[in-house]
Structures are given as structure tokens and as C-alpha cells.
């Protein structure tokens, strides 16, 4: 099973909350609508806060995965 690899990867490993969400919030408006951004984040809050941010900002939370052992969270820009 291969998913389309996101064009953009935001490496937020080692950065603690809310920095990964802030990085996502600043970067997503710069990609085309429909594009997927992948956030690498090992901060324990990321798994809850990235989906919550998507809900609050009406963006699509695509899902979580693991990339080289690091948690990865995919977000598609809807608007």
C-alpha cells in the first residue's frame, strides 16, 4: 500500500508544542489547495493537536503514519 507522498514535509522533530502546530499553520496557506503537507513531530501533543487544528481551521486531517520511526501527520489544504 503506497499513499501519495506529500510534496511538503515539515520537520518538527524535537520541537515541543505548540511549535509543530504553529509551523503547520504558517506553512499550509503557502501550498496549493488540495496539496498535502506532512508534519514530522514527536511532541506528545501533536497527535491530538494537529487533528484538532484541522477541525478548528476546516482543513482535512488525512492521517498519521510513521516515517523512519518518527510520527508523521498528513494534512490536506481545503481552503
Amino acid at each position, binding site marked *: 500500500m503506497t499513499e501519495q507522498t506529500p510534496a511538503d514535509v515539515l520537520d518538527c522533530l524535537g520541537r*515541543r*508544542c505548540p511549535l509543530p502546530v504553529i509551523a503547520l*499553520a504558517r506553512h499550509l496557506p503557502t501550498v496549493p489547495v488540495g496539496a498535502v503537507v506532512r508534519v514530522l513531530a514527536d511532541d506528545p*501533543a501533536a497527535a*491530538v493537536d494537529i487533528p*484538532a487544528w484541522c*477541525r478548528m481551521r476546516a482543513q482535512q486531517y488525512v492521517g498519521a503514519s510513521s516515517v523512519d520511526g518518527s510520527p508523521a501527520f498528513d494534512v490536506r489544504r481545503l481552503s
Partner: protein
Amino acid sequence: MRDLRQAGPIDQGEDVHNAYFDAATATPLHPAAREALLAALDDGWADPGKLYTQARRARLLLDAARATIAQVVGVRPDEVTFASSGTTAAHAAVLGGLAGRRRIGATLVRSAIEHSAVLHAGQRHVRDGGAEVEVPVDRLGRVDLDAWARAVSGPGVALASLISASHEVGTVQPVPDAAALCHAAGVPLHVDAAMSLGRGPLPAGWSLLTGSARKWGGPPGVGLLVLRKGTRWVSPYPADDRESGRAPGAPDLPAILAAAASLHAVHAAAEQEGKRLSALVDHVRATVAATVPDVEIVGDPVDRLPHVVTFSCLYVDGEALLTALDRRGFAVSSGSACTSSTLQPSHVLAAMGVLTHGNIRMSLHRDTTGAQVDRFLAELPGIVAGLRAEVGM
């Protein structure tokens, strides 16, 4: 331009400029508690278990406190046990309830939003070979009754545990319905009622109930363990004849007397005080929503504890927020990961799927004034904006 407040001595009294908004953790000593505590320091030092005069007087005082608390809870005095804290009471209820039903099964069913004391007891149970089923909650923090029904009717369920209302977000849990489902499945129910005792009628249907005096204006060091007659329960502690073998160690009699006096007092004023605090919380919910952009106010807005309100501010570091608020003379709690000793976000907020960073929990108490709340609401937007500006948001 307001001066930044210097950190003051911890015994600085509360006023408009120094507001304590963390009643969910501990409350200032109720005047009835202080009075009872001071009187008991001279009268209540003897061991209630001995046979001489001083001991018998201590025993009378202890029995009177037990009877007072039993009356508020609506049980018999011999169903009330004093533990050393709310946490140890919860540990004892869960581990003792599981042990008492060992022959039936080894599974604990609990909600995803229990107090950490219940979670830790569950972890100990699993470590010792038992099993645990966690029942999820919805976005408002209310336990999923369908999932609860399935869980408690599973094989080998020894005990179920459901908090009366969330200590983190205030949402009242459907305890009567959950209890009925437990009853139908033959499973005893433990209710952590620490947030509800002294605030209104307790839900029905439980077999074990626990609480903590410092949540209702009593002193720290007094937990409540209530076991309905006929509940299977085996003490998780080494044998001790204190408290009918249910809680070891000499009871803190002065603190217990203070706990009983304050529970009686707050129970009498509960309805009126609940309305007052609930109106303040409504005001906080509405004003924060209107004046702070990108904020998620969590928990049921109506079916909630009267005194608790929790919200999360996007792009704000929780620890920085608490520090900034403390500098302005506001003491609040937080469910954000950075404010926790474990550096994990609140399991309650996570279970609800709500934003965990930039989180503030305000819990009000009898000394909270409208002026304090108004000042908080006036200053919060600027504090949040300032912290966001620091990170370019």
C-alpha cells in the same frame, strides 16, 4: 500601563489583585473547617481506638464526623471510611473492589477521562495480571453509553469506574444510566465523586464512592471511601484494625472533624452557591469566546459542574500562559503537556479530541468574586495576543 506584579508571599490573601481559580485541585479552608480544626487540635489528638477517657472522647468526635458525612452522602455511618487522601481512597476503592470480585473476573471497565488516581490503580491492576477496558467519550467529554454497555456486559468484568463529572472539563457523566447498565450486568460501580460532593445531589446506583475533603473546603489529608453494605471489597493494604480494616494508619482526627464541618456547611449552601458560580462560568464561556480569537472552549456548556470552565488557545504555550497569568495575579491550572510533570497532554482533553495546547482550567470557589472574574476576562485577551505575537501568530 499596568506594572507586572512581583511574586508575592504564598499567604497573600485573595483580593481583586490576587485571584485563586484552581478550586478543582484544592480549595481555601472553609471557615467552618478552620474553626473545627483549631478546636480539635486540643481535643482530638488522642487515639480513638484506645479505652481511656481521652480516647473515648476522640472516638465520639470521630463517630460524630462520620455520621455527619454519612448523612450528606445518604448512607449509613458504617459505610463511611476515612482515607488519607482522595487519591488513596480511589486506589483503595478500585483495587479493593477488583480484589473482592477476583473469583468472578479480572477486568476493570473505566471511562477514558477518569482521574489519574483511578488510571494508576488500573495500571497497577494490569501490571499484576489483570485487564482493563477503556470506554471512550464524545467531543464534549461524556462517556459513550453504548460502548459502556458493551464493555460492562463483557466476560469477567469485576468492577466498573466512572467519574461523576469531569475534573478537567466539568462535563457531568450519565451515572444513573451507566449504573443501570452495570446493575443489569451484575457489575459493581465505583464513582469518583470528588468533584460533586457538597455541590448537589449525588447520582444513584453506585456501590463504591470516593471523594476528597480539600475539594469542598476541608483540609488536605482526608479522603472518603464509601462502601455500600454488601459490596464485595477486600482491602489492598496489609491488615490494620483501623476504620474497620478499610484504611490503615491513625486517622487525622482534627482534619476529619474539619472535613465534616465544612461538608455540612457547603452542602447546606450548595444550591445557591452553585447558581452563583454557574452564572460566573457562563459569563466566562461567553466572554472568552467573544474576545479571544482561535479559542476552543471545551466540555458541555450546560450539563456541567457549576464551577469549572476549560478552554484552549491556539498557538499559545501553556506554561508561558500560566506564568503570564500568575504574574498578573491569577492562579489557574492547565491540561497542556508542557505544564504537566509527565510532559504528556491531559488524557481527558486527548480523549475528547480537543486542542490541548494553550489550555487553561479555571475552577471557582466560594471566595471567588465577580470583580476577580471581570479582571481576568479583561486581561486575558491581551495576554494571549502578546504570547501569540512572540511566535509571530
